[in-house]
């Protein structure tokens, strides 16, 4: 049978999930059509186009970024901005957990509250559109969708700006690029995310597709396949005048194959060698009751840490479905313990390794949720004020920046437009988001339009 497996959430969010699944179905080469060979080829071309000659752009305090996105719109009231003093219909079903400095998080984030001295919560983010697809695009690109221009994701901009480091792809998506989050936009597709196409936190064995000889194909067969490709490409070389290009192409596939057996890459793209204690630090045993599968967020974030440690510049991780129009309490109880554990574990681990100051951790969601509970024990979409988490990469430690009003309906203090939030993240990476990139037709477009640095967020 082919009944579609669709989880809860509003119609639009369900449709988004279908989109994401569709991307998975077409495999690793899905949304962007990129394989590792394509990526490496793109990177080398970027170098040839100038980066190598001009020297690397100056990096900011954040050398890498781990972007954890919570699709669907996580409730700020049940996470970073509880309202224990609000009237009953606004307050929500949870108590609070206190941080060392006397701030309160929702009790769902007790572990994160204990490491609150490492992070900044921005409680006054202001989005534009309480619509999943448009808000997701806005968050990932800095722009609302346009029929005229396709804007690139932040990861693609970082990839274009800095290029690869230590031979690893600069931009990696765990497990895959999120539907409606855009792509490389007007930038070349070579700057797109390298999608794992596999979930390190899933039920089966974890294998990144390009790094694994396909199951059922023996090493000998694989070599034959490689030979076949060489033959075809050789033929193309003979047919086409641009022999250099073809040679380069061959080189990229060669590099991809070498990565296949490169111990460094194998290590970075796997969880091999991690101790039980480390897995426990990130929380490895949570099961999502609603889906009857492992939460997986701990292993995703652990892999993200390994990737940035190895040289990847930008890692996106997504987790859960947070569109809690109904049964918010059960949704939170199901998904938040693993999230809390993994985020606290990641920050602790990065700090212990001395990586936190050079790694910016960003926990986002496309919008928040309505101040008042609805009659189905849920909250609906709300973009007028919500919360995000930042840590490391030169972001102030131990701070709550901005505030929402008594019912989390509007910003009460230090409102942070989403563009300003993203501008500040770019700033920490060493990218001036006022700079313009060239779209095709030589049209210059600002990385972020009308954004400004939020000085209160950075140390």
């Amino acid at each position: 049978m082919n009944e579609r497996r669709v989880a809860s959430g509003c119609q639009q969010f369900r449709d988004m999930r279908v989109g994401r699944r569709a991307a998975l179905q077409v495999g690793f080469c899905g949304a962007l059509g990129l394989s590792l060979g394509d990526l490496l080829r793109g990177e080398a071309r970027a170098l040839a186009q100038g980066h190598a000659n001009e020297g690397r752009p100056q990096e900011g305090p954040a050398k890498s970024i781990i972007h954890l996105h919570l699709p669907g719109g996580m409730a700020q009231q049940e996470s970073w901005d509880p309202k224990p003093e609000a009237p009953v219909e606004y307050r929500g079903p949870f108590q609070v957990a206190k941080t060392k400095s006397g701030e309160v998080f929702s009790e769902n984030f007790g572990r994160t509250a204990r490491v609150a001295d490492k992070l900044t919560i921005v409680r006054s983010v202001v989005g534009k559109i309480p619509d999943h697809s448009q808000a997701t695009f806005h968050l990932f690109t800095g722009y609302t969708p346009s029929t005229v221009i396709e804007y690139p994701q932040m990861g693609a901009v970082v990839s274009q700006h800095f290029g690869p480091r230590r031979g690893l792809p600069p931009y990696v998506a765990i497990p895959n690029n999120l539907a409606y989050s855009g792509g490389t936009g007007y930038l070349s597709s070579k700057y797109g995310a390298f999608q794992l196409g596999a979930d390190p936190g899933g039920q089966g064995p974890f294998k990144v597709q390009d790094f694994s000889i396909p199951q059922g194909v023996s090493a000998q067969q694989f070599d034959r396949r490689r030979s076949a490709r060489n033959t075809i490409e050789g033929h193309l070389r003979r047919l086409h005048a641009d022999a250099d290009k073809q040679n380069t192409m061959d080189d990229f596939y060669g590099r991809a194959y070498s990565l296949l057996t490169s111990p460094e890459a194998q290590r970075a793209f796997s969880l091999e060698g991690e101790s039980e204690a480390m897995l426990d630090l990130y929380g490895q045993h949570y099961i999502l009751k609603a889906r009857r599968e492992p939460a997986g967020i701990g292993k995703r974030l652990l892999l993200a840490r390994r990737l940035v440690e190895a040289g990847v510049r930008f890692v996106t991780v997504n987790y859960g479905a947070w569109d809690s129009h109904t049964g918010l309490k059960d949704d939170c109880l199901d998904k938040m313990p693993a999230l809390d554990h993994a985020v606290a574990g990641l920050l602790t681990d990065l700090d212990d390794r001395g990586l936190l100051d050079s790694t910016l951790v960003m926990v986002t969601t496309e919008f928040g949720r309505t101040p008042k509970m609805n009659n189905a024990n849920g909250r609906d979409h709300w973009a007028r004020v919500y919360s995000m988490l930042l840590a490391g990469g030169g972001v102030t430690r131990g701070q709550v920046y901005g505030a929402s009003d008594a019912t989390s309906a509007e910003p009460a203090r230090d409102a942070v437009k989403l563009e300003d939030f993203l501008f500040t993240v770019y700033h920490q990476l060493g990218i001036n988001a006022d700079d313009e990139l060239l779209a095709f037709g030589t049209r210059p477009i600002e990385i972020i339009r009308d954004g400004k640095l939020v000085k209160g967020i950075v140390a």
Partner: protein
Amino acid sequence: MRIAASIAVLLCGAWPALAGPMVHHIEAVWPRCGSRGTTVEVTLHGVSLEQAREIIFYRPGIRAIELEDLPPYERPISLHHSGRIEEQVRCKFVIAADCPIGEHPFRLRTATELTGLSMFAVTKFPTVDEAEARRGDNDLLAKAKPVPMNVTARGKMDSDRMPDVDLYRVSGKSGEHLSVEVDSVWLTEKHYAELEFDLMVRLLDDRGRELARNDDSALHVQDPIVSAILPRDGDYIVEVRQPIYRTGSFVYYAAHIGNHRRPLAVYPAGGQPGQTLSATLLGDPAGELPLKIGLPPTLGDFAYEGDMPSTLPMRVSAYPNVLEVRESEETSVASLPAALNGIIESPGDADVFQLSAKKGERYRVRVFARSLGTPLDPRIWIERVGGDSPEVEGDDATYPDRGLYAVGPQLQRKELLDPSVVWQAQHSGTYRLGISDMRSLGGPTFVYRIEIEPASDAVFTYPYSRVIDNVECPRLTSFAIAQGNRWTVNIGLSEGQGNQYRGELEMIARGLPPGVRMIAPRVPAGYKTIPVQFVASADARPQVALFEVLARPVDPAQKLISGSQQAFPFLGHSGGHAWRSVVVDRYALAVTEPAPFSIEVVPPAIPLALNGELTLDVIIMRRPGFHAPVEFQADWVPNGVDVQPTVTAEAGQNKAQYRLSAGAAAKPGKWKIALEATTTGGSYYLGVGRIRVSSAFVDVTIAEPYLALKNHPASIRRGQRGQVIWDVDHKKPLAGETEAVLLGLPKGVSVVEPAPRLKAGDKQLVFNIVASDDVLLGQYKELKCEIVVREAGQEIRQRTGTGILRVDPPLASKPQEAKR
């Protein structure tokens, strides 16, 4: 049909069940239809079907017997939006020889629940199953399944992996009709689906040459209907397929294949009760057929069957017909009320009726065309002869305008295309009523009927439920009352078109089973929902019955039309755009076997103050052996009152509390409130798999607040002490000392203990505060004060005032004198 094979396929494709919101009781009924005068073995598939006791049908003609729980599925089947098939019940449907053909809504009563609505269909023809044992068995001309004439083929589109074509071979004679109609959208009981249910039919000769085809029709919308006169004796092929390939499972259909005439409209499309109507059947390939139709004695919709496998919609009205005079430009209407009948026979035509009215007379003018299944998309206008512009115009209507009070706005029904307007004559004199097609189309079956009758006061009831996709939500609308317990349902009230009654209403029930009574608070003017409680006595026999809830004016001298309605979508899409909806005019109420618990709310001895909170004490009375958690909440509160989310009394817990809050706009007075409680298994959102009870109503009084506070804007410097002062305006005398809590202070500013206490006569409330050295500078505008009053052993929390506190930097040194 390949039910067994289908199940196997489903099982192979199953995945672990997901808990989610859209869990319905009955997800599949196999077979989908049966013949009059036969007994059919039927299985129901879904969740929470165990301990099946009884099935109730909304229409006469079918009895369900020999209900039997079958073993549950070893591997549940997951469907769209978390729907599941886990259990199955087998039974027999005994279909009477005079059972009405068409759809028969029904529900199953189990030991503890009354399921959501599901559907079964009755055909006048004998049935034969497609029985495509292997894919492709009947996909080619040579393999077409032979069937007799006048049969209903129960088939299935096996289109889950590749397109399917089902061919049937039937023998006919020269000059004979071959009429085929396929029920697919109309037949389904599936809750969510896509376009896979859109089928088409072709009639072919034995060499595959097409005689006729149909995809959609005005009469049956997405379901095809076609008829042809056969050119010679021989075999003919009926082909059923999807016009556009779309994957999908459970795509069952019934193809009615016969040699009957197949008219598409009847003219006139109605008459008076008991009348023998001279009418003409239109749209058959053999031409028009005059005949006499005996109309029933009851007013409203009437389905004319004739020798067809599906009916033609007609109307029965209390007033006489006026038929369009074709030869005349205008047809005179002798008097109102009247039913005007005509046909827009050719493109661009407009029919005009001349009628008289007196200034101030109010009429409801309701057009029936698309509602009757004719192709006309009508628009009407009424203008005074000699007037400048129409007094009223009508094109599309709303569902309430069409009398479909319970149908959600996103459901798709053809009735919306027919106008229905209230016309109040602005002058005394002669008027023209015109009707035409919006698209300037016309044809021989473009029949219309316009019923003009005095506008009446009318208020209708429906079970109030606003959930995703407009689906039936047993959590809110199921009338399942545990023996010796009670349950509360919010009843929605919808005004009929033209209603002018605005007074208080009381609710009455008709048809409740023995041992069940209804308690309904009086409905204040303007209220659109009201909680209605049903109480089953301890000796009420477990049973299920159909009943109505009606509204009537408190003043018996006032006249009001009322009725009950409930609507159910099928073939839904996310967002509630269902292809098909079923409307019933009675509710089903079941007395179920005793629940393992009941709840009681302790009547509050104190009022709920405006801007205040009130905590209700809840007692859970558990039967021996029942220790599971119980959830409870208030599903109805008066306007301006809010509630906390669902509260769970954990396993073994017998006492709990529940908070209400009143805003400033709540209306003071005494209100009846009940709490609804459920077990925690099954599905929360729709409530399938849960046992529900409610508390008795308790009176909650909403009262003026004790006091109002006015803030003196305050400031404080970092590292220093200060005060926040409120002026007190006493509204009611306080008994004793009262706690006061200052809310909204920024982090780093705190109240110096002891906090002040307030008593009768105090003019000011002063909080001493202290600021830390690192409190954020700025202005904080959301200071509030909460007063905690203890009265009669209970606690009233009242919030009042809005204050401002500014945090300033510390003074570095003595301030300089201002320069002159």
